[in-house]
């Protein structure tokens, strides 16, 4: 079977989640460059998976899919988009066989032949019976993904389920572990494996929890998450593997900045004819997560063009390529590290010193301005301070990336240097003032 990359489903879901209901079926389909028929088929497939994975989910046939998966803060404990990672298609017979094999190994370690017997006696009558070769290849696969373990000892080998992590913990310990996993999956990146583990632990806890009072597994909320961020983690691991193995990577790239991004008229990436994208082959060096927007970037090196930056959401059909010499990789990585040392996000432009004066809130108020600057100001420093204000200074590559952050403080922040940035800020505030000028008399 061809390797499923889920590029299309990811693109489809991302657009659905980000534009929450903006487009009609026709508009949505045309923006993705697909037919309405393909749109309907994709929705149906996604709906089927969602309803199987989330059996408790309020779900009606008539309900719009966008509504089903839309973000709701107080119900955000289970990341709904996780269902995508459950979507790998599998034949009914294979899904039944693997489940039966795991169930048999749950009791005690078994040999391949014993497992073959157990499987044949419980498989649905209509399904094809597996042969020894199939069972052996299933065992090999399950051992490789770590769900079973071969017992030490002579042939014939015995296999057992590898879930000691759960079996050897008491209920109290499981609860502590669940909390830890929930907190880490929600506050750290990467998170997909954490969410998958959380799912398993949650099921185990609700099975063993006998008091019957309430739901023990959903006490936490996180304010606020970038809801779609786990979609971008889908490609992350391929890239991390390539970097670790010092291998080049090739992919078809659709720059979200270009007119082909789905904001534009004729649009989108992934469903369009492949010739619309740009085939890239590059040496991946680092992956960057930007907390400001909840987006991922790949930083890479290209012999002709030097340092290259890509948004993960624009990368499709990713494949590992040839490896490069360690020496070459280390050299390029060193150069990159030097270049991004002063990047607010990923800008590798010329470093400039930005100085800004921040004004404290009124006397009786807690100083949330300073608190926020200390929390979010990255490597910048507070250089001087008086009763009413303080000066913050940072050396940063270019001013484009830091500007939105400075602006978000409103009138509590005055840019002092560089002059060009100060002038830009003045111009922007003037324009913003005109946006709301008509309200002036009400103030």
């Amino acid at each position, binding site marked *: 079977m061809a390797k499923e990359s889920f590029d299309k489903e990811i693109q489809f879901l991302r657009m659905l989640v*980000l*534009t*929450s*209901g903006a487009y009609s079926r026709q508009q949505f389909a045309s923006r993705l460059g697909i037919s309405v028929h393909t749109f309907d088929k994709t929705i149906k497939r996604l709906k089927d998976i969602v309803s*199987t*994975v989330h059996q408790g989910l309020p779900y009606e046939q008539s309900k719009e899919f966008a509504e089903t998966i839309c*973000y709701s*803060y107080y119900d955000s404990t289970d990341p709904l988009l996780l269902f995508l*990672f*459950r979507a790998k298609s*599998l034949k009914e017979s294979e899904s039944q066989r693997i*489940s039966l094999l795991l*169930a048999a190994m749950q009791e005690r370690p078994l040999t391949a032949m014993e497992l073959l017997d157990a499987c044949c006696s419980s498989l649905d009558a209509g399904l094809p019976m597996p042969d020894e070769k199939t069972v052996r290849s299933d065992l090999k696969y399950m051992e490789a*993904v*770590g769900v079973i373990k071969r017992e030490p000892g002579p042939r014939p080998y015995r296999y057992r*389920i590898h*879930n000691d*992590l*759960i079996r*050897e913990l008491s209920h109290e*310990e499981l609860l502590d*572990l669940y909390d*830890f996993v929930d*907190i*880490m999956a929600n506050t750290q*990146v990467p998170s*997909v494996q954490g969410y*998958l583990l959380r799912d*398993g632990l949650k099921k185990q806890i609700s099975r063993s929890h006998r008091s019957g009072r*309430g739901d023990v597994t959903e006490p*936490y909320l*996180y304010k*606020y*998450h*970038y*809801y779609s961020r786990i979609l971008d983690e889908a490609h992350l691991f391929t890239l*991390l593997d390539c970097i*670790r193995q010092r291998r080049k990577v090739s992919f078809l790239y659709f720059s*979200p900045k270009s007119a082909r991004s789905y*904001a534009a008229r004729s649009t989108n990436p992934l469903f369009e004819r492949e010739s619309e994208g740009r085939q890239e082959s590059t040496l991946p060096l680092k*992956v*960057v*997560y*930007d*907390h*400001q927007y909840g987006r991922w970037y790949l930083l890479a090196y290209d012999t002709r063009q030097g340092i290259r930056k890509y948004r993960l959401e624009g990368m499709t059909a990713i494949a590992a390529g040839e490896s490069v010499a360690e020496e070459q990789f280390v050299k390029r990585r060193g150069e990159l590290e030097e270049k991004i040392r002063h990047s607010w996000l990923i800008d590798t432009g010329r470093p400039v010193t930005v100085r800004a004066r921040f004004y404290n809130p009124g006397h009786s108020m807690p100083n949330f301005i300073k*608190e926020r600057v200390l*929390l*979010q100001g990255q490597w910048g420093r507070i250089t001087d301070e008086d009763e009413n204000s303080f000066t913050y200074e940072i050396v940063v590559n270019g001013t484009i990336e830091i500007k*939105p*952050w400075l*602006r*978000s403080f*409103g*009138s509590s922040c*005055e840019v002092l240097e560089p002059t060009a940035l100060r002038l830009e*800020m003045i111009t922007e505030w003037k*324009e913003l003032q005109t*946006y709301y000028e008509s*309200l002036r008399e009400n103030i």
Partner: protein
Amino acid sequence: MNPFEKIFNYGIISRLEATGICMITAHERGWLKAMLQHPAAPDALTPETLSKLQQLLDGEMAIGIEGIMVEKARSMERQVYHSHLRPLRRIIGSRNGMALSYAIRSGKLYTGQEGFPYKLEYSMVKREWYIIWYHFKNRMMMSTKLDKITGISELPLEDDQSERLSVQIQARLNKRRISAAVQVMPEYNRELSRILYAFSCFEKDVDYDPDADCYTITLSFSNNDSEYVLSKIRFLGKRVKIVDGGMLQRRMYESATKALERYGMA
């Protein structure tokens, strides 16, 4: 490592769930092993559990991200786990009430304040934990920083009592919800993706007018998050304009006017 392994297939998962079998892959163990190296691990787990887990994960490969993955523009991480989480989550789980002692900003102390805990909430911006709860005597929803809590005790409640309180809390939270409509300035439509990403942390509806090629995003949030919404809107600058949401629009006008005063442009 491919997160789309067939072993994660929903058919397999639901079959295993039906038969009560628990499965863990090397991916998940590798992730956990990496997370156990985080300084929060010894706070969240007892020394016995932690060493048991480390033993169970001995020989596993932690997902190696060090030096490969960089996080930018992240808030400093001052608190990931708080020691009050353990007792409070157990009270929430058993659906009982509680008595809290805590200090407020002015330093004033409150002791034995009785109420019903709803959820523990982590602020990704402030990187701090809070408890959202209902104060019995004041009949008010409260949000208290765990760091300010000095004492916690459990108050037994009858099932029907906690059921009633949960419903009440839900209604109160819903009452606090407000909304604002933000229009994407059409000249910035090519930056739509960036703008939508920035708002993807809120509950929202997007409306598209094909004739005017104009997008309007209706955000829905709790009234005590207005400041955060405003800072997002200022963050995006000229790209967006609030078209509905009286108080927020006035605040934006004020922001711009006061900012210009700072620059001597009044």
